[in-house]
């Protein structure tokens, strides 16, 4: 009997289409795995009946000879930042606990239209703010990975899409949606040894996605290989007139365009990403990546992205500034939590509701954002950060004169243990150092597994491409995937 948990997106789609097995069989098998993996805390809400219903619809379509969608019969996990009609959507916050939207986000609607089914809503860092999934109101997500030191320290699955990364790595689902504001797809993918791509800003509609930082937020797929990411991104992307920043461009056939022959491609290696004191395992993996891409026919060139060191500070001004405004709507007036102390007036209600509804990290970022936008500080912080952002984008533009893609590590370390970094927000923020520049520039960027460190934990290689050139990014990812021989899996301890 087929172990459906081992099948990837393409295999499920093809097996359902050929009649090798029924979509319902896959959905039921994965529902069982999800239900048995509570220890990972990857899901906020499980929706087995929806996974089955979607699968039944696909099976019925196939029986009727109707054409099947790009994701037909593939059960997936949905990050609980996407609003789903009739299913609680919380952004992992107390503020939105119990909030059931009457509408469906464009990206999730696109996936259902393509024949995917929903296994459940995946846990995340609260309002997507965090790099370890420790800020969720519904508890930490646990990575299925363990260090090879014989201990059983619980590790972070990365964040903010930590429920997504954990669920895929534990083979609860073949793929899941993520969102990436400053690395929230790539860093968790790297931490658990899977692939994930943040497309060019504007490829995926933000309509119906709970906003963190509007100018940076971008949805993307997370899966176990590059082909699956290509398939799922095709299903997710597309122009949406309901999102003014959505790109009015056709969706390329990324899967059909996959080609790991990189002859004629120049790969830039940014010297500013070689940080002092960085883990030698990271450096070694990076060097391996360079060798693999060279082997695939690419030319390697040294490049400079001179403003890299300002990217993280700029990001931690711009993202909180936008967040402080985006999260103002959670005020206890119309939906979500309302904390109305006895005899309270409007201002008291705001204060009580927002103090109770937001976690510490969310409150911290609202405070930072409010501060940097306030009179007298705006120019020194926000305006300055926007100038830096423009310089970061120009760095990339200049780099494209001498290269077509950029290769770098995804994160400066492997997964850390839960509780190891959350006492110090700055060291947590530093984990985004390699991911943030591409976010600020709105460029497509992907993480693929690059190997294991000494502790037996996965490391990720990041490929950054030119705007709209997801194809080249995916192709380079495929070339690495074919050469890295990465087959490691987390042991099933839960």
């Amino acid at each position, binding site marked *: 009997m087929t172990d459906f948990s081992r099948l990837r997106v393409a295999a499920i789609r093809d097996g359902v289409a050929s009649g090798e097995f029924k979509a319902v069989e896959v959905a039921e098998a994965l529902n069982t795995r999800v239900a048995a993996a509570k220890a990972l805390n990857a899901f906020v809400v499980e929706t087995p009946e929806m996974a089955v219903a979607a699968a039944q619809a696909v099976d019925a379509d196939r029986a009727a000879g109707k054409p099947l969608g790009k994701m037909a019969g593939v059960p997936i996990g949905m990050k609980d930042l*996407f*609003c789903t009609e009739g299913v609680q*959507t919380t*952004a992992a916050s107390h503020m*939105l606990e119990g*909030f059931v*939207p*009457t*509408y469906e*986000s464009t990206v999730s609607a696109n996936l259902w239209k393509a024949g995917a089914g929903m296994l459940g809503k995946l846990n995340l860092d609260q309002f997507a703010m965090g790099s370890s999934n420790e800020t969720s109101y519904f508890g930490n997500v646990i990575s299925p990975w363990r260090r090879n030191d014989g201990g059983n320290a619980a590790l972070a699955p990365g964040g903010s899409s930590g429920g997504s990364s954990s669920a895929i790595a534990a083979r609860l689902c073949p793929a899941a949606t993520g969102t990436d504001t400053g690395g929230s797809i790539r860093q968790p993918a790297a931490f658990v040894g899977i692939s994930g791509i943040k497309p060019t800003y504007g490829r995926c509609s*933000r*309509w*119906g*996605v*709970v*906003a963190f*930082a*509007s*100018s940076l937020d971008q949805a993307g797929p997370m899966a176990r290989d590059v082909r699956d990411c290509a398939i799922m991104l095709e299903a997710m992307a597309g122009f949406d*007139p*309901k*999102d*003014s*920043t959505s790109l009015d461009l056709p969706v390329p056939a990324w899967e059909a365009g996959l080609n790991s022959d990189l002859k004629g491609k120049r790969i830039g290696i940014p010297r500013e990403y070689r940080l002092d004191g960085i883990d030698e395992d990271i450096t070694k993996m990076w060097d391996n990546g360079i060798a693999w891409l060279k082997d695939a026919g690419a030319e390697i060139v040294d490049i400079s992205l001179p403003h890299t060191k300002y990217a993280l500070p700029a990001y931690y001004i711009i993202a909180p*500034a*936008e967040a*402080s*405004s985006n*999260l*103002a*709507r959670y*005020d206890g*007036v*119309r*939906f979500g939590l309302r904390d109305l102390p006895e005899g309270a007036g*409007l*201002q008291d209600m*705001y204060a009580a509701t927002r103090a109770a509804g937001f976690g510490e990290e969310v409150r911290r970022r609202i405070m930072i954002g*409010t501060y940097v*936008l*306030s*009179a007298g500080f*705006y120019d020194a912080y*926000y305006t300055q950060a926007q100038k830096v952002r423009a310089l970061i984008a120009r760095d990339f533009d200049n780099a494209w004169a001498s290269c077509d893609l950029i290769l770098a590590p995804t994160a400066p370390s492997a997964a850390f243990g839960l509780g190891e970094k959350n006492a110090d927000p700055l060291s947590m923020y530093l984990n985004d150092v390699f991911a943030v520049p591409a976010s600020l520039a709105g460029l497509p960027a992907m993480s693929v597994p690059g190997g294991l460190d000494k502790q037996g934990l996965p490391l990720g290689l990041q490929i950054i491409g030119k705007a709209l050139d997801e194809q080249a990014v995916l192709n380079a990812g495929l070339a690495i995937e074919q050469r890295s021989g990465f087959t490691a899996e987390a042991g099933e301890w839960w």
Partner: protein
Amino acid sequence: MSEYRIQGNTGEWEVVIGLEVHAQITSESKLFSGSSTGFGAEPNSHVSLVDAAMPGMLPVPNRECLRQAVRTGMAINAQINRWSRFDRKNYFYADLPQGYQISQLYHPIVGEGEIEVTLNEKDPDSPTKKIGIERIHVEQDAGKLMHDQHPTMSFVDLNRSGVALMEIVSRPDISSPQEAGAYLKKLRSILRYVGSCDGNMEQGSMRADVNVSVRKPGGELGTRTETKNVNSIRFMMQAIEYEAQRQVDLIEGGGAVVQETRLFDPNKMETRSMRSKEDAHDYRYFPDPDLLPVELDDAFLEECLASLPELPDAKRARYEALGLTAYNAAVLTAEAETAFWFEDLLAEGVDAKQASNWLMSELFGALNKLGKVLDESPVNPKQAAELLGLVANGTISGSIAKQVFEIMLETGQGASAIVEEKGLKQTNDTGAIEAEIAKIMAANEDKVTEYRSGKDKLFGFFVGQTMKAMQGKANPQIINDLLKKALG
């Protein structure tokens, strides 16, 4: 223009006024959502997910609202900014679902322009003054709180939430309540001509924030106060008068004007402090990251320009060229509706002078008596043209026309039908008229003698008597001719 001075104990004071007018843009749907903008609907019946700021909702600009702002800018000869941007103005209030108002602080869609006002629109000799417009920007309206629905709670109606407003900001070029009134009237007239705002102040489609300060003539600018949301021209003029006097009294009494936001209470005819500068919000404006900059292309701008109607100043000049008096031209162009009524008469072939005289004396008089406005006139331009045509072609006299018009107002019947039915047609029967003249002369021999001995004024007496004898139906020109011949 006018020298408006407040007489204080320490001498004369001059008033400096700037107006920020919020005008609701005429559009079917809201600025960033598809909800209806209809007035007077059940609370919360025109609210979309975007208007209620549900999680994940995004604004999409309504092109028609931007078009109306651009057309308005063009109508005041303002600079149109091809590149503009929306900013967020952040503050918490229960009528503001997003927690911010989408507005334009840094890059408004319309830049500098000007409006020429005359203190008395109806007096052609009244001096004119140009009031500078600093900018027009587009922004969202807020919802409405209702405090009378529940003993301990306030309710929120979001029907207005997200409705498009233009904020039209004047320079502090206004120096008297009268000028402020003239400016607001002129602005309202232009908006109505352009069709970008219905100008209805009672329904809140237009309201003004009034900035007032006082200074010694020609001196340094004083500290200003801002009186918010004044919703009639009369109230605005009263608020300025009160506020300027209050500031003079305050300064002369040794105090100082505090920069603050005030409210006008029309019942007590006074302004009251609402919040001081210390309590002022820090709005934390920043560019709205959900929206792209607004870029206007040539085709869009050309369409906006081509769609502009003839504006009041141009219309007035054209009417004067048609032979109307300056006074009549000014009155007919002050409101778009009047001008359009007048032009409908011309389109029906009525002579311009005849049309303007009739409109201003007969129609306005009748409507005044009925307590109706032009829009509610029981007689439409086509019907009026029929009546005036009968006068022009000599079928009825002017005095008979008045009678016919009264019947039209009462019954709604057509002019020709009334003339026919009541036998009011004017007669040109010279024999009949001559017979009546003979009788009148015979009965008033003394007056005939007086007339012939030089008392020319008696001619009118004979005309009147003849017309009376003819029951008003004789052609007055023929009476004149025949009388002159008979009286010698």
